[in-house]
């Protein structure tokens, strides 16, 4: 019996050694599952790595805890992985562990969220969204759309529903929102408040605004969830969402597409979670020993609305109904 066990153990060990030799180990430290966006992000990267021949994915879900993530990174080092993909749950406190990764000369690819210590560490590539540009596109879309329907000169009251105070997306998008407004002097911000990125709080906030502000023409919601919540509040106040109040969301989740096609929401600015192809491309280059640029690469993102054709300078909007079937998240 003991011999049999030893034999089995030896076989297992041999197999694992063999596989370790054959496979190129790609480790991915993800922050956890906080939203649909994050789930789509994880699925995209996991599928891309797992589907690639000769690569083995080592995945760790940190459950929103930095200490779990630091532990995971150290585990990756001991396991001798070939490359590490990293999305940090917070922006600070990574210097030490990322320097350890550097010391072991394991290439590091930063995904989605950039740590504050980016300048002090070595990394092979970085992919992340451009929150400021997303914010700019939101207000620019509203401005251009109003021009297109002949309301370019009219005094327009805008409310900005912000995300969780202090979150990267909230800070960036607010900056972009306000910067985007400068080109449209007829647009005036009458209220700015946090809806915490959730449907319920977006709804409660809109409900209150509808009572405290006499005239609201445009709602800029820094994510689609808050916009979707606000739609119900607008209906409850006897107004028509999408007509009486123009609604611009952000993220481009499937539910927002449904709302746009139903005519209850006007536009959504994309913030793509589908980083899989970028990551595969970067890791392939690494494996082949090619040189890579160290600049932060933003994925290409679209703008989707009811009718399409609104020109925002950097991008032209696409009719949501035309692409709704292709949406993966």
């Amino acid at each position, binding site marked *: 019996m003991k011999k049999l066990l030893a034999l089995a153990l030896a076989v297992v060990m041999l197999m694992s050694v063999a596989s370790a030799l054959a496979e190129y180990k790609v480790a991915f430290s993800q922050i956890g599952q906080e939203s649909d966006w994050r789930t789509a992000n994880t699925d995209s990267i996991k599928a891309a790595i797992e589907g690639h021949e000769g690569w083995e994915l080592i995945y760790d879900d940190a459950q929103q805890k930095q200490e779990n993530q630091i532990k995971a990174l150290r585990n990756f080092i001991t396991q001798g992985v070939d490359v590490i993909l990293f999305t940090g749950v917070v922006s600070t406190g990574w210097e030490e562990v990322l320097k350890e990764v550097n010391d072991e000369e394991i290439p590091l690819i930063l995904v989605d969220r950039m740590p504050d210590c980016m300048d002090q560490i070595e990394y092979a590539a970085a992919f992340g969204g451009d929150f400021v540009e997303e914010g700019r596109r939101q207000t620019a879309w509203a401005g251009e759309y109003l021009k297109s329907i002949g309301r370019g000169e009219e005094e327009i009251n805008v409310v900005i529903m912000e995300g969780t105070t202090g979150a990267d997306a909230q800070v960036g998008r607010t900056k972009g929102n306000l910067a985007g407004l400068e080109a449209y002097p007829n647009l005036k911000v009458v209220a700015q*408040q946090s809806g915490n990125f959730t449907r319920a709080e977006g709804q*409660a906030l809109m409900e209150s605004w509808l009572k405290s502000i006499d005239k609201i023409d445009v709602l800029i919601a820094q994510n689609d969830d808050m916009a979707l919540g606000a739609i119900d509040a607008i209906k409850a106040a006897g107004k028509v969402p999408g007509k009486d109040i123009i609604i611009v969301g952000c993220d481009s989740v499937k539910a927002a597409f449904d709302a746009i096609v139903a005519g209850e929401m006007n536009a959504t600015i994309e913030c793509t979670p589908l980083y899989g192809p970028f990551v595969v491309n970067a890791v392939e280059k690494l494996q082949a020993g090619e040189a890579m640029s160290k600049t932060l690469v933003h994925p290409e993102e679209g703008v989707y609305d009811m009718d399409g054709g609104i020109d925002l300078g950097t991008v032209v909007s696409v009719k949501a109904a035309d692409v709704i079937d292709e949406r993966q998240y």
Partner: protein
Amino acid sequence: MKKKFDFSVLARSKVTWAVVAEALILLVCLFVRPDFFSISYQPTTEMLYGNLIDIVNRSSEITIIAMGMTLVIALGGTDLSVGALVAVSGAIALKFLRWDVTIYNTPGDYTVYPFILVLVVPLAVCTLMGLFNGFLIAKADIQPIIATLILMVCGRGIAQILTNGKQFTTQYSPFRVIGQGSFLFLPMPIIITAIVVAAVALFVRKTAFGTFVEAVGINRKAARLSGINAQLIIFIVYALTGFLSGISGMIYSSRIMSNDSNNAGLNFEMDAILAVVIGGTSMTGGKFSLLGTVLGSIIIRTIVNLVYYFGIASEATMAFKAVIIAVVIVLQSEPVRNYFAKHSKARQNLVSGGARG
């Protein structure tokens, strides 16, 4: 001779101070924005429309949970799992409404499983989870804060697993009625809350149950020795709190017509505990006040609406809430109440003494 009303009794009661606090907050509102109080009729929804309605409406989720939390705290315990149970309840409801989003691709006015299951199963599961809390506390003798921490941590995980980490949306109109419907010109959550508050109040005050809860909360051993089945009381109270969290979760998810396992009921345990404490029930257990809790919950919501209505900057919101709550809690503290009680008594003696000559 007509008996004079003793104001010191009123000043010593914590409920009085909750009323004073709410009145003060509303008074400030009245001066800053008188239109805060305007109420009109909204024909499209057949409901009364106004800020005060919103405040009571939006406080429903917390008020309902806080009814159970009041009894839990009166027992000398706490229940940290209520927020997670809200998420579980919504997740199960949406699971039955949508089942598999890959098959039933677009949200619409349909339910995959009979509506009765959508209503009953979430409440049943939440009650069972409450019973689980009760079991750990009554039978295994684990401290409530630790026992309920288990479901607080893994409840959201269960909700995530049930929905495969996805957010389902529905348009099923009977489900919408729970959170967005109306009855007697009032939003449905207010009606549901009124029924829950009345039912709990009748149950604890018209039977001996309330007295038993207070007895167990003051001294479990003494209560047991005087013939009260303390374990049974604990079981019932935690199961009831689970059940009420389930109702709260249904309202929450019906309002947004979707489950939101990450955010549904987030920090509700803290708000519910706060509502109970503002309402004058002591964390050490014993005497409790359901009316005070309802007021506490309304005060919390008034502050939130005030922040929205007055357009206070989002960065300052947290600090603003903290200051108001701190003032309310200090107003209710023992020394402050005693000071006012003494003061009013002294004045009264002086006045009545003077009158008699």
